[in-house]
């Protein structure tokens, strides 16, 4: 089995997850172990095998494009950490 060296800091950035140096080291070792286990799949011959995205015997489900009742703004905002004027408040994203 090859050694995988997952770049935890980089992947954590992609995942929008802040990690400490301690976590980088702990997760790095653990995830390398998991990835080495997963590497076994690379030895399988999968030529000509179609992927299965999910097991349900259905594809492309449509519904009529018609308006229907939805949650009112006051309720939709009821779990928000910060809200005002029927809007979610976030840190500034434009200068």
């Amino acid at each position, binding site marked *: 089995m090859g050694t995988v060296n997952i770049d935890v800091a980089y992947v954590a950035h992609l995942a929008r*997850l*802040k990690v400490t140096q301690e976590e980088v080291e702990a997760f790095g070792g653990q995830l390398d172990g998991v990835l080495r286990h*997963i590497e076994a*799949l690379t030895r399988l011959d*999968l030529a000509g095998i179609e992927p*299965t*995205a999910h097991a349900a*015997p259905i594809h492309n489900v449509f519904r009529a494009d018609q308006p229907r009742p939805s*949650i009112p703004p006051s309720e939709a905002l009821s779990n*928000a950490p910060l809200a005002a004027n029927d809007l979610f408040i976030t840190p500034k994203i434009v200068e």
Partner: protein
Amino acid sequence: MNLALEPISTLRARLRGREICPRDILAAIRERVEELNLALNAYVHHDWDAAMAEADRADLSLPLGGIPVAIKDVISVRGQPCTCGSRILQGHVALYDATVIGNLRRSGAIPVGRLNMDEFAMGSSNENSFYGPCRNPWDTSRAPGGSSGGSAAAVAAGLAVAALGSDTGGSIRQPAAFCGCVGLKPTYGRVSRYGLVAFASSLDQIGPLTRTVEDAAIVLGAISGHDPADCTSVDTGVPDFAASLGGGVRGLRFGVPKEYFIPGMDPAVERAVRAAIDHLAHEGAEIVEISLPHTEHAIASYYIIAPAEASSNLARFDGVRYGHRAKDATDVIDCYAKTRQQGFGKEVKRRILLGTYVLSSGYYDAYYLRAQKVRTLMRRDFERAFETCDAILTPTAPSPAFKLGEKLDDPISMYLGDVFTIAVNMAGICGISLPCGFTGGAGARLPIGLQIIGKPFDEATILRVAHHYEQTTPWHRERPPL
């Protein structure tokens, strides 16, 4: 008679005979919760007054009229907390009923309480809960299994009549095995997932945990059915599962996969499951050896697909619309990253990182696509097997309940414990776990689970086999020593 420990059919008869009212059942459950929940930590929230008020309005003529059903903390019940065992959703209140909750209410049932679980259903021990681990009622130093540990412990200990759980890689069946109750994962598409907080969307299913197979059949019948709000819900008839329980096993043929009896599995588990297979043969079933050759790749492919889908599903927890938000962020990206750092526990972080890695540029074909192809092979294994048998018999887990803390910092060892349940999710078929014996020797007596795997949408057959096994063996009458 303690109402909290009675099966649904008995409660239903007594409710209809006006010997008891729904409040009596709730009061019995409440009493046990107040007595035992401190030790077990099965419930993370309950609101008895609301449940009592709902009980007073129950229509007793309905199939589950007046019967309380406890709910895993990952299924939305309007007006109740829904935290998924996570800090990031602490204080979150669900805005709508999941379809299964609407279906339960239409059957007359009363959704009660919020049951402990591994954070976002990621785990096999219930130790990954922000609200503390749930404990196994047979030995409180041991794990109840996971991720539906609270559901299994509550049902086994009589803190609930029945419960709903969710199963992505074994999260209903493995805790059912560890706690000595019945747990059923329905076929993918049988039960709507609308209102279930998503973990791995191509694998998740909601199902019942109960003390008897008949109760599982009754609850499954109530929650099943096509739902236009879930595009993976399959529009197929729902049989009367409870009505077809009495068919016995004579004339049925059961496959025993050689890959499911592996070196290193607990000898007590192997003994009990082999004895269960012999028992079913004695009862008139034919037993054939089968092979599911891609079993050895189940865990590797699952631990690509499930984390990949989880990393995508959990992107919505960013501190903007609901849940926890970090206070000291410098900009919006920093706000997301710190919120998620503070809100998620270790195992969820591990899986988000693993999922993000396998989906990142250049790795998709090597990991996710490859795992989806392996899923095709695993599905074919089962299709081929079901050409020669009506159901498949296996252990549910390779060991009985392990000690809390034993595997906490060893994710691979924890993941390997899912070896017998994962393939059922990957193939999208159905499986049930029920008690088939106990460990002997010194120490606590621990339950052992038999898994019965069925063809797609053939829950009726596995329920019938499970019911016959249960009714001809003594195991379901055993109660934890509380």
